[in-house]
């Protein structure tokens, strides 16, 4: 399949939306990974990003706001042979689903999570998201948001995610490269995508991001957790690339009952007579 073969309905996003760059990168990455539309699953959250469900051919599940990650965990454990990608926004996965996010990191589930991070709730007309910079005014925070932003990268690293990366929606070749590595990685992979919302976040335009992003060079040691946390905590400049990657056993690899075949391959008929003896 070519990238265009994945096209379904034409997107309804605003012209210039960062979602187009993420969509394009994802399709390119699927081609580079050699995945056909019938060979993987995408779980979509609810929001502008989640609306990608109608724009890409795949086995898709359009879940609820905040619940894409636990839904993906269930799919992963029922059929751990299927590659699984989660598409959702910053409000969805760091706000409503924040608890699920940190616990999925702990379990190192073999899932790739791509977060469209534009610091606003686009689909509900521009309220601040959990990644909004302190002081950002919006319809829900007219005097500016009081909380400091969530730092998803350091959160993921500290909670046990084994692949933590950051990309920029305005750099499709780099974002494609990161997504390919994220899906290839065995374990919980997160890709935080810096993404302008051209309609509701005028402060953080493509230009604003271009002045701040820089690519990690080959001298960077992504296996060192202290350095990774340092990179994650940078605020003036924003690193793109793989910030942290280590190899650890995945959740499904720790389940002996999944060694032979996935759950979907097991017989529905199970004899309980030998279990009953324990109850005599």
């Amino acid at each position, binding site marked *: 399949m070519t990238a265009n073969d994945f096209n379904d309905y034409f997107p309804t996003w605003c012209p210039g939306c960062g979602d187009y760059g993420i969509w394009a990168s994802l399709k390119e990455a699927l081609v580079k990974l050699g995945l056909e539309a019938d060979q993987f699953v995408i779980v979509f959250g609810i929001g502008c990003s989640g609306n990608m469900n109608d724009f890409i051919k795949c*086995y898709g599940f359009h879940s609820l706001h905040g619940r894409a990650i636990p839904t993906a965990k269930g799919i992963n454990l029922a059929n751990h042979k299927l590659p699984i990608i989660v598409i959702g926004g910053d409000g969805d996965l760091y706000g409503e689903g924040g608890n699920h996010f940190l616990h999925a990191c702990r379990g190192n589930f073999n899932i790739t999570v791509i977060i469209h991070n534009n610091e606003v709730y686009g689909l509900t007309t521009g309220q601040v998201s959990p990644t909004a910079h302190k002081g950002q005014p919006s319809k829900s925070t007219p005097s500016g948001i009081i909380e400091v932003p969530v730092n998803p990268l350091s959160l993921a690293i500290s909670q046990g995610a084994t692949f933590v990366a950051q990309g920029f929606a305005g750099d499709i070749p780099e974002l494609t490269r990161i997504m390919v590595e994220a899906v290839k990685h065995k374990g919980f992979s997160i890709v935080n995508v810096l993404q302008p919302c051209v309609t509701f976040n005028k402060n953080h335009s493509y230009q604003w991001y271009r002045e701040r992003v820089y690519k990690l060079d080959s001298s960077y040691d992504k296996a060192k957790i202290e350095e990774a946390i340092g990179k994650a905590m940078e605020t003036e400049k924003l690193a793109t690339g793989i910030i942290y990657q280590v190899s650890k056993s995945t959740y499904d690899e720790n389940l002996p009952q999944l060694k032979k075949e996935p759950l979907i391959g097991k017989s529905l008929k199970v004899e*309980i007579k030998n279990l009953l003896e324990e109850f005599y």
Partner: protein
Amino acid sequence: MKKSYTFKIGGPAGFGILSTGLIFSKTVSRSGYHLFDYFEYPSLIRGGHNVTETHFAKTPVFSQEEGVDVLVSLNKETYELHKKEMKTGAVVIYDPDSFEIPKDATYKKDYILAPVPFTSLLSKIGGLKLMENNVALGAVCALFKIDPAILFSAIKEEFLNKGEKIIAKNQEAAKVGYDWINDKKIVLKSFIETMTDSSKIFKKAVLTGNEAVGLGAIAGGCKFYSAYPMTPSSAILHTLAKYAQKVGMVVRHPEDEIAAISEAVGASFAGVRSMVGTSGGGFSLMIESVSLAGMTERGIVIIIGQRPGPATGMPTWTEQGDLLFAIRSGHGEFPKIVLAPGDIAETFKLTIKALNLADIYQTPVIVLTDKFTGESHQNLSIADFDNLNIPIENGKWENDSKPEKEKINSFHRYKTMTDGISPRILPGTKGFYFQENSYEHLEDGHTSELSEERIKQVNKRNKKLATYLSSHFEAPKLYGKTEADITLIGWGSVKGPILEALLNREDEINNKKVNFLHFTHLWPLDREEMKRELGKHKRLVLIENNSTAQLAQLLEGQTGVEIKEKFLKYDGRPFYPKEITDLINKL
């Protein structure tokens, strides 16, 4: 009248009351008795009053009873709380080294005191204080004429992982208790059975409703169970977690109930039978995904072990307070099936049926249990299980279909069908793709807000209920004779105490002919059939473990028939058979 017996032991929480009760239940089961046991405890790990009772007989037993034949009082409080329950000729066992029972005005002369000196008997054999429950069990078995070898085998299994020395010492503790009763020639006058024989052991599984849910899940092909611990349903999680590797299941304890049900929806999407378990509070958190399962047409089973609410309520007690909540749960309109077993056997059977229904109707199926049946034991034989083990029905799959063209084909996941049920394929099936969508959608799963498509999908989903009513619904079951002066009506776990009350009374209480109409399939209901059924009976009396008569509300809403006479109990305790017979006497 049948002859049945009750053993009761009480003491402070943390002194092994529950495991002592279970050892006794297993001992009487192996001796050939039917049993029902019941455990009361506060929501504490240490402190507070715990009590467990085993009601047993040679004939079937359906619930606990009021009277006590042998009471073991590990503290004085137990005796004071329960002395009024003693039957004529009963025996109270206590340790005179710990406290004295004064023979004052409150002492009724029709029961016998057996001051078994646990402390000094144990010190003679070098046993520990915590073995006193086994001294008591030995004494109890002597009174009930149970071959001590049967008790010793039950003790051995209880302490199996503690090593042979500990097992032997506990058995010795039981032996000195047994011998003490025989040496003193104390006789339980209320007991008329003959001595049991350890050469003839009866093999029956002694299990709780929660364990029956677990075994039903395994037998019903459930492959994925996810739950956040919550009394009184946590034991389902424990049971399935214990067997997961052996039977090829994945059992998850995630961060919260929202994750639990989301994971189950995901596992169901990937193609396995999946189930969650919780109580009312946890179910409150799950509800958005009940609605999601309705829209995406995901079959999942939800077990709700009810306890008294609202909020944290009374965590370790029982109630039937969530019937209407379960039926109406979830935003929007979508089909849902609600079942409620009345005893341990029905719990096993309906868990399997629920898994079938979820697969067939591709929609949420709720099973309402409660603390009362969830944590009480009954005993069932292998033959019982064989009769209850209904075959697996797989629902509609189209996994054999071949793609038409070389390229990837769109699979119409939500194809309109006359029965409302669209065939499925597994995600990952070669040559196809589809999406399941929490937004309203077209037949192919794409999001749509078109008027005609919306109506088509709503009607398709709603049709499942009519299909269910004609294919899998079971009408309420009538116990007793068709003709009666009074028909008791109830659902779920009130079954036990009502059957116990009616048992061996020739369906007659105080010259009134009484029968019982029991609902296990609560939603949806067939309005016309229910109207006919309710119209058959002369005088309906509702028996329900809640304060607002939810079954009566439901039936009135569905049929227009008002049930005027109601006997409601909502103090966290189950009904006692005597409360039912007393009620009928007063009618």
